[in-house]
């Protein structure tokens, strides 16, 4: 497989794996928050704030995966080396 095919594959699989765990984590966090609010509606403001911070922390993991995928796709540091190698192979 060529270098760029591998890059696209890596970005897709990486993003999928990155969002898998994050989705499970955020689901658990929201589940607990909803349970807490339904048990004690008076504390909903504080629970909402805490949940937001937690969700932001969890979400940043998926964002890291997204940033790595964007680097792989659009700002790959090994692009020039791969192009040079492809040229020498073609000769």
């Amino acid at each position, binding site marked *: 497989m060529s270098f760029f095919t591998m890059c696209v594959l890596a970005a897709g699989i990486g993003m999928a794996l990155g969002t898998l765990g994050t989705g499970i984590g955020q689901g658990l966090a929201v589940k607990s928050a909803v349970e807490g609010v339904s048990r004690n509606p008076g504390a909903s403001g504080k629970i909402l704030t805490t949940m937001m911070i937690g969700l*932001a*922390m969890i979400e940043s993991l998926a964002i890291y995966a997204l940033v790595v995928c964007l680097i792989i796709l659009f700002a790959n540091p090994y692009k020039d080396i791969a192009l040079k190698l492809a040229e020498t192979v073609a000769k």
Partner: protein
Amino acid sequence: MVHPLLFLEFFRNLLAPLHITGASADAIAYTWLIIVLLLVLSVLTTSALKSIPGSLQNFMEAIIGGIENMIVDTMGEHGRPFFPLIATLAIFVLVSNLIGLIPGFFPPTANINTTAACAIIVFLSTHVVGIKHHGLHYLKHFCGPIAWLAPVMFFIEVIGHLSRPVSLTLRLFGNMNGHELVLMIFFGLAPFLVPLPMMLMGVLVSFIQAFVFMLLAMIYIQGSLEEAH
């Protein structure tokens, strides 16, 4: 003449002697636009303050009062001196997130340089506040609870503190840039009505990310204010 994608695209030519990329030039141009907008808005509001507020003053009072209440709720009364810093960051980030929803405008927060600047200001201000408040005792924050573990804890804490600006930067940048990219791809695939739900989600993401940025800035500053144990 081809109609430009962004209104302020001519800034790319004006800023060309500085040798910055096109995307950064856009971010700088729109940052200046937002600075001018906010300056004009605040001057307009504060130049004619009345005891019975008009519509503009009422709106601004609601925003400022809401942020002040949130600061007092999260940090307590001793968080009041940091109101200007946190409110400025929050309003700037919120406006720059939301301006991306208007066609022809580019959100400056979708460029990593803008978000890094905001995050570095938060990072530096937490440590300046900590050193001002505690003096040399601020080092205790880095040493952990047990004395003989301090050399190990110090490095862990330093890494933890250094990861804060990185996560602040990447969270805001990733969210806004990802949103822009998704919109761009949807516009390329099906320009009619399909990107609309994504734009609706963009409103939500803009508010939540601005809120999270403000909240984390408050929590970091409060963390350096409290006593080490």
